């Protein structure tokens, strides 16, 4: 029979129950989060390096994944030179690097276009990812004014 309100314990808390909570809650939380992350990394392009699954050093780091986003008005023949990633695009970029998917890529492309003046032939490059994308080469459509293509290069 558990002792209620044992000396030193919060009022109304059964001592063994609190001790069990202290012992098991953190590891069970770790196990739950890591299990979800492991399943997601197996079933989707989520990187093993992020999300609490402790899969670091199991695969290439997401920051080493690179894709160039070349966004310019349709018909523009000028070449786009690599340039710095716009500051306001960085959060989308980081998310797309870690969870490579068509959805995250489209969100990134939209943020690049929104952040840049595409009235000329300048721009735009952002560096990105992703071996996973080689399985399904992305060719994103964008508004009629703008064509967004992604040139994927990977070290082989």
């Amino acid at each position, binding site marked *: 029979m558990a002792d209620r309100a*044992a*000396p*030193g*314990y*919060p009022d109304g*808390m059964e*001592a063994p129950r*609190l*001790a069990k*909570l*202290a*012992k*098991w*809650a*953190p*590891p069970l*939380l*770790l*196990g739950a*989060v*890591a299990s979800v992350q*492991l399943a997601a*990394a*197996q079933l989707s392009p*989520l*990187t*093993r*390096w*992020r*999300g*609490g*699954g*402790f*899969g*670091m*050093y*199991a*695969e*290439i780091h997401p920051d080493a994944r*690179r894709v*160039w986003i*070349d966004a310019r008005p349709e018909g523009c023949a000028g*070449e*786009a*030179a*690599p340039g710095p990633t716009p500051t306001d695009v960085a959060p989308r970029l*980081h*998310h797309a690097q*870690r*969870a490579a998917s068509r959805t995250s890529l489209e969100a990134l492309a939209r943020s690049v276009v929104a952040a840049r003046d595409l009235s000329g032939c300048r721009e735009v*490059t952002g*560096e990105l990812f992703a071996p996973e994308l080689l399985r399904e080469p992305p060719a994103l459509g964008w508004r009629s004014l703008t064509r967004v*293509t992604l*040139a*994927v*290069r*990977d*070290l*082989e």
Partner: protein
Amino acid sequence: MSLDRWLRAEVLVALSILAMQPGLPWLPFGLRVALAIAALGGCVLRGRARSAAWFAVAGALVVGLALAPLAAPNHHFLLAYAALAVALSGLLPEPARTHALSESSRWLLFGVMLFATLQKALADPYLDGSFFHFLLLHGGLGNGWIEPLVPGLAEAVAANTTALGTFLATQPSEGVATALVDPGPRVALLARGLAWLGLAVEAGLAIGLGLAPRSTGTRGLLLAFAFGVFALRQEDVFLASVCALGAATCAPRSPGWHRALAASTLCLLALGALGLRAPA
């Protein structure tokens, strides 16, 4: 004031949390400040105030991780769990507090090693050695130590660094790739050996922590893991966190191992703070 008082698990965890501050751009500034203040409070306060401080530490980390789960590295999750363990155990009177923290730390480390093993066992680029092969040729896996042992590796890394810089600075074309210079089959063999050694050590730690957490073998392997990985990669905060939790598993029955792991925690944090890391 005794030395052991300053080698308590919560102090070691707090120091690890403070050491990870430069790696916290994913955490909103207000939470970063609250986290640092609460971690300091967790070291110096007493009684319920200390417990409240640790709940604040755990809360700041859990909220931050929930807001940006893909931005934080895995060891930040580990420190959040460690903070929660310290906070919850702080509600207990002694000796239940020390016992609960010791057991919680043991199972946290077990979970880390179990999932690290599973993730690697399920990743083809790890098992076939290609990930470590890439790191060795790219210059990111203790090359300062390894390059002199493998003829031609230093020259290959230098050539690859130059080629990569050129490659990344040029106009991209669809389908164009560049190959890394590889000095021979020894590098691939070394990469595969390192990969399987790493898998064996992490699996061994998971088994040891699950079945014989207080054995000399498990604790010795934990220390070897910490300093072995430190010699290869700049992972001082993660490895210090592992040692801090390892120290917590030793209290109060193995004071010698507790001091060894606590001292290792401080050593790793000091080396990291001084920039004395594995030569890349």
